């Protein structure tokens, strides 16, 4: 991967900041999402809540279905491949996807190695639940990070936990003496240069979004107040009573995440939220996939 290309890929993520990326399964849903103000859509055959319910192996979506969504909207289109499944990623690159999500929502194809994302021209976003995971994915070539959260649950607790963990570890690195950074790099299992960047800048070298469990405008604003630079909403929209209205409300809550009065208005009459599954009721912890 050429240096320029990686810079351009990180910069596309910068253009998505302050926005909401929505999971969609059909061109019709993609149009609803775009009209509601999504800054990008994630094309997939089944949303995480249904993947969870269906069990079995979850794979990359049918390229034909993804192409249909690419034709339907003008905003960037993302799609998921399995962790470590570099051939699925090659296929997504071949159909000129705008962003690949190497995602724990799908069944992992490799329990040791992630994809060598530096080999690709298209950008990758990866999930992380702490700083070490985030920096390891960035070292492999990811140009955007999101919290893992716990997809398809409508329960925000894990996304909150992952964002707070990342913030805490970044703050810790920032306050270290320089001669302590070598040991920190060893513990995080990442190169010294990335640790040094975080130490000096006090942030990740790429954009960091919240994902996994966002179901309401309040959830989205909570994640933004905790430091997320934007939000992914998966099952939360199209598993709810009034997807268009809920999607539009979440978009506005992300822009004005500090305005409680506005978010109160946005939260009115949204219809039924997705039912959700409590953390304790989850049989499968997707966040534990790919470390």
């Amino acid at each position, binding site marked *: 991967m050429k240096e320029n290309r990686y810079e351009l*890929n990180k910069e596309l993520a910068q*253009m998505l*900041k302050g926005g909401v990326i929505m999971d969609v399964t059909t061109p019709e849903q993609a149009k609803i999402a775009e009209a509601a*103000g999504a800054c990008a859509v994630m094309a997939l055959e089944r949303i995480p809540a249904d993947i969870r319910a269906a069990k079995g192996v979850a794979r990359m979506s049918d390229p034909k279905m993804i192409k249909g969504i690419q034709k339907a909207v*003008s905003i960037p289109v993302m799609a998921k491949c399995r962790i470590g499944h570099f051939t699925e990623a090659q296929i997504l690159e071949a159909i000129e996807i705008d962003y690949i999500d190497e995602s724990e929502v799908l069944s992992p194809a490799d329990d040791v190695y992630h994809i060598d994302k530096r080999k690709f021209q298209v950008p990758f976003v990866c999930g992380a639940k702490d700083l070490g995971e985030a920096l390891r994915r960035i070292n492999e070539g990811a140009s955007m990070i999101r919290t893992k959260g716990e997809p398809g649950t409508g329960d925000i607790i894990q996304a909150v936990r992952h964002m707070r963990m990342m913030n805490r570890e970044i703050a810790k690195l920032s306050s270290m003496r320089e001669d302590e950074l070598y040991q920190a790099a060893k513990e995080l299992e990442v190169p010294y240069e990335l640790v040094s960047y975080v130490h000096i800048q006090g942030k990740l070298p790429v954009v960091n979004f919240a994902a996994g469990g966002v179901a309401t405008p309040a959830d989205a604003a909570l994640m933004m107040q905790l430091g997320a630079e934007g939000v992914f909403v998966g099952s939360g929209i199209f598993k709810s009573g009034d997807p268009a209205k809920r999607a539009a409300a979440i978009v506005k809550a992300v*822009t004005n995440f500090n305005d409680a009065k506005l978010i109160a208005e946005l939260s009115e009459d949204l219809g039924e939220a997705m039912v959700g599954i409590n953390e304790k009721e989850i049989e499968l912890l997707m966040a534990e996939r790919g470390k």
Partner: protein
Amino acid sequence: MVVAILALQGAFIEHEQTLHNMGIETIQIRKKTDLDTPFDGLILPGGESTVMGKLLKELDLFDIIKNKIEDGLPVFGTCAGLILLASHIVDDNTVHFGTLPATVVRNAYGRQLGSFYTEGNVEGLGQIPMKFIRAPYVKSVDDHTKVLSIVDEKIVAIQYKNQLGVAFHPELTDNHQIHQYFIDIINQYTVA
């Protein structure tokens, strides 16, 4: 001098940092009451024009800003910001502010694989670095709109009186010449 930056979605912080590096004060526009603070110029950043266009209307910012631009407020649009200003968009009936007489093509270089970096000549400034990210370009302009830069036979920077529009992202490079050009427009219009 205070420059307002539309902060609804996209890369607004990058513009803010560029202006701060130049020693210029900024404010963010996220809601109607933010427009109560006086400002001398407005930046419309890169991001998604569909998102910003929708939020401008729903947050009741659209009419006020459009009137200000028509009354001579200096405005500078980059990438999506250029689309918000343009009077025509190819294959799209949408017009946002429509105050800048020009026809633009959205995602004109294709998907993310078509994004690129180059250097190009800007009238009066010389060679400057340019980053194009899922960028538009200008297909045509009317007689009163000045073409400031052409790269690979495509118009990528234009000015119409108080309005400056560029297809690339000067806020992503260390070169502040385009921002300085906008500050000069502000000075010119404030004095006049």
